[in-house]
């Protein structure tokens, strides 16, 4: 143990009230930071997982016509803006696109979807629904549909072309359960009868309240669509590679490709803003704790002026004196961070057991939290930086104190 650390430890433990005050600031700052980040990211991550689990990490949609920009000549009175893309609904040759895209190492699987909006009725209830015509086997490979089923059986859906899977909230709205009949209105005015094979809950309100899955061929006939797929959804090995892959697919297939980050940009920004806002608020708590430590150490320097002069007379250098006060800050930061991390984990666990009845944007019965080691590292780093800054000024002040002035003043 170095002499400054030895002395710092003693100074610190002999001022218990000041130590407790400084320590509690860091402990609560770190703990609250961890807990709030776990909550905000918990909701955000749940949304992302559910969204990707239902809609894929990447979607290839409408074909577009290449712009051939080098060949274009701007009109004299035009402002020279680039011509907009012209899109054509649906996927041209989906099987070929899927065959080629499966060659990419990032692609785990892909599933064609024929999508359309139709009216559904069951008994006396009506609703406008988002019909997803899918290949059951491919869709089960690409999405989390199997895990999302809360009632019924996926095999019943796979083996029966006149069966459907409906979203849980939609089921409640139509008052339709497994085995019940739901009628879908075709564009030509005919009602098609389907049996509910299963109920799915994605956990996202906008999906659960509108979505119906049917067999792709049945959906194609019902919607009277010439194209076999209006989009292809992808499951990726690394979902963070989705933007890069989307850009490549656009160039390669001349179809609009959208990553989940782009698709859910507005919601993700909302979550990010919320996280940032909470992080800033909690960082202020940690800074306040730092300010508390600054005060405590400044008071300590004033209280220990005599001891500093004694140490200097005994041969302790300026940097040794500075180190004594920096060590005090470091010890508070280290102990505060460890205790703060433990308290943060405990608080996070406690919060995750608080029941809430959320049925809007997300579906959950308890607070959603994320267990992420980075929250703990970041909170610790933040505490260390705040405490270092708070300790530096008093430490420097202590180091600069001329011992002779103190000794003369004490005579």
């Amino acid at each position, binding site marked *: 143990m170095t002499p400054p650390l030895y*002395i710092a430890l003693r100074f610190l433990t002999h001022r218990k009230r000041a130590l407790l005050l400084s320590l509690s600031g860091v402990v609560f700052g770190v703990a609250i930071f961890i807990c709030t980040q776990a909550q905000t990211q918990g909701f955000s991550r749940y949304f992302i997982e559910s969204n990707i689990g239902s809609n894929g990490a990447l979607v290839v949609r409408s074909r577009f016509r290449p712009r051939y920009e080098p060949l274009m000549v701007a009109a004299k009175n035009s402002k020279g803006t680039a011509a907009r893309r012209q899109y054509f609904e649906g996927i041209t040759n989906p099987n070929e696109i899927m065959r080629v895209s499966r060659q990419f190492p990032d692609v785990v699987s892909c599933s064609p979807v024929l999508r359309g909006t139709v009216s559904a009725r069951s008994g006396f209830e009506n609703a406008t629904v988002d019909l997803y015509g899918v290949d059951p086997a491919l869709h089960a490979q690409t999405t989390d549909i199997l895990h999302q089923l809360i009632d019924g059986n996926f095999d019943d859906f796979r083996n029966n072309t006149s069966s459907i899977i409906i979203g849980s909230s939609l089921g409640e709205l139509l008052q339709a359960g497994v085995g019940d009949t739901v009628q879908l209105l075709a564009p030509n005015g005919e009602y098609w009868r389907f049996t509910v094979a299963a109920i799915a809950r994605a956990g996202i309100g906008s999906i659960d309240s509108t979505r119906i899955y049917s067999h792709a061929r049945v959906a194609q006939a019902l919607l009277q669509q010439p194209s076999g797929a209006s989009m292809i959804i992808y499951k990726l090995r690394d979902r963070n590679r989705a933007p890069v892959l989307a850009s490549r697919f656009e160039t390669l297939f001349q179809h609009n490709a959208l990553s989940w980050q782009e698709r859910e940009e507005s919601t993700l920004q909302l979550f990010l803003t919320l996280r940032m806002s909470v992080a800033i608020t909690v960082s202020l708590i940690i800074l306040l704790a730092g300010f508390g430590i600054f005060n405590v150490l400044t008071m300590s320097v004033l209280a220990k002026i005599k001891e500093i*002069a*004694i140490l*200097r007379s*005994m*041969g302790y*250098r300026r*940097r040794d004196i500075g180190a004594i006060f920096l060590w005090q800050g470091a010890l508070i930061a280290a102990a505060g961070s460890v205790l703060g991390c433990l308290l943060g984990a405990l608080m996070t666990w406690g919060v995750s057991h608080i029941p809430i009845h959320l049925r809007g944007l997300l579906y959950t019965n308890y607070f959603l939290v994320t267990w992420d080691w980075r929250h703990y590292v970041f909170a610790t780093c933040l505490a260390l930086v705040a405490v270092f800054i708070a300790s530096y000024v008093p430490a420097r002040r202590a180091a600069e104190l001329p011992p002779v002035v103190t000794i*003369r003043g*004490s005579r």
Partner: protein
Amino acid sequence: MSAQISLSCEHIERYLGEEEERVHALRGVSLEIETGSVHAVVGPSGCGKSSLLYILGLLDTPDAGRVLIEAETVSHLTDDELAQQRNKFIGFIFQFHFLMEDFTAEENVIIPMRKLGQLADAQMRDRAAELLQGVGLGDKLRRPSRHLSGGEQQRVAIARALANDPKVILADEPTGNLDTANSERAFELLQNLVHERGKALLLATHNPAIAEACDWVHEMRDGRIVESHHRNA
């Protein structure tokens, strides 16, 4: 003088304060302290005794002149180097004991040893116990310094000054805060240490009895040494 010079200064000038309050505290002071001798600096308050002690103890720097430890000039050294010299060669004793309140008697004695870093923990404890036994505090090693009496605190300060076996001990009115019995005891202790262990001691004092018992007495007035005489002279 044929004895070896432990500490000396030549033509020391020192000003204190700023502008109108500026005082010429030391005016060309020169002094030599030999090994195994006890020197006293006497004079009225404000004559420059303490200022001289702080400069000789490398706690303060002179505006002119130089300080030498064993014939080596130290005035040009950096702050860190001066701190090292203080740690190794000089032991300080102050009027108000100046012990570290949060530490025990033993720990107070160990603190300079920790800085020097030449002994292991067990060796430092043994040496502290030996020094405290030497000053009659062998039974109060673990007692917090603030729970010791004034006389006991001053004896701990003496033991601490000897912790790194310095060649020179500088004492600024070491008995100024003690009653007669404790004063005599503390001085006797210092005198014995100097003669038995071959140290050099310079003390500033107002106590004529103590001054008369020293080998050399230097009388100061208005920042100058106006008279120096040996006890036997």
